[in-house]
């Protein structure tokens, strides 16, 4: 149990996927303009991460034992297809849920946070339960970073950010400060 807690916290804040591992930066910068959208993207990502963790565990256990060289290929293909399938099911079954979360699914599948999750999970040798907890932590961490970033950016929209810095440069510097703040979590649970 304790181990699971630390896996979760580790992925959530200590080694935050976005601010410490540099994963999923494209949506982090692209979709953090509005808090509401950002939050929903975060939730959708968490969802996909859980699917990914399950899929990766299944592939690792049943298919890839003898064919490690197929790992990357099969991960990406299986994850993409599984998500696409889920997307269509959600769209059919619950248009409301789709409108809220589903529209983000295509954006998420070809995203390195997802693939990164599968690869880290593999290299750390996580089992199914550990993998799911890891995915929840990583997704939560991504959501947290994204929501903070979005709320900060919304606030900054009301400020006189110098014209020179406005846009990507500002967002990067903002992320830099945020990453410095997250360094406070370093070593959490290691002592």
């Amino acid at each position: 149990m304790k181990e699971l807690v630390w896996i979760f916290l580790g992925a959530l804040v200590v080694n935050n996927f976005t601010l410490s591992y540099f994963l999923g930066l494209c949506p982090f910068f692209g979709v953090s303009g509005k808090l509401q959208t950002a939050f929903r993207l975060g939730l959708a990502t968490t969802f996909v991460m859980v699917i990914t963790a399950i899929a990766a565990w299944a592939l690792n256990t049943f298919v890839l034992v003898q064919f490690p060289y197929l790992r990357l290929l099969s991960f990406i293909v299986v994850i993409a297809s599984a998500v696409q399938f889920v997307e269509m099911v959600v769209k059919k079954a619950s248009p409301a849920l789709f409108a809220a979360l589903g529209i983000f699914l295509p954006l998420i599948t070809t995203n390195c946070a997802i693939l990164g999750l599968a690869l880290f999970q593999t290299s750390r040798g996580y089992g199914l339960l550990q993998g799911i907890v890891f995915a929840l932590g990583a997704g939560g961490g991504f959501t947290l970073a994204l929501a903070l970033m979005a709320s900060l950016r919304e606030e900054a929209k009301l400020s006189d950010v110098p014209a020179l810095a406005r846009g990507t440069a500002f967002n990067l510097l903002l992320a830099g400060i945020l990453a410095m703040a997250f360094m406070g979590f370093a070593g959490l649970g290691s002592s």
Partner: protein
Amino acid sequence: MSDFELPPEPGSTRLVATLTVAGLLAGLLLASTYALTLPAIEANAAAALQRAVFQVVPGTTAMRKLVLTGGRFVPADGSEAKDAVAVYAAYGDGGRFLGYAIPGQGPGFQDTIKLLFGYDPQRELVVGMQVLDSRETPGLGDKIFKDPAFAREFAALAVRPEAVVVKHGTGTLPNQVDGITGATISSKAVVRIVNERCAGLLDKLPAAAEVPPAPKEESR
């Protein structure tokens, strides 16, 4: 792109076929590449491992992989489970058994630290340690593998009952490791990994007399 008509919808068969062919070709290509590069990759890995083992158990000229099966360490023969616990028996000139190289890993300041340490069962001492992989802070935590003085702390370290970290410059007893100023956590993490590994494995290691003989060739 002059016509704005939607292209005709291709049949499902065509979709399936395209993906199948792509998958087939990709699989073939990958398998071939794998087959071609595997020897080199394995040689690299083996060489790296060997270098590490040779370093943590001074004087090593040959080694043999032992895996834990059924509560006992036996020479690896390729049939063991992938995730079986492994240690390396190290032999000096003339096939003389020198000690074990034991891999270990655990959380450091930033992320998991992976290391290998040498253990001499006759003297019951750790005789060397090398960090294989870590993400500790450059300038602070990375001294665990950049600072030769820290590595020297492991040249003859008593681990029974356990090694302890003390403030830099105050280590006097055989089981004391001088911590690195400004990187106490990383230093402690290294020692903790070593301690944990020792506590878990030392009793299971074959006694010096029962160690399988050195392999015929230089390595492997």
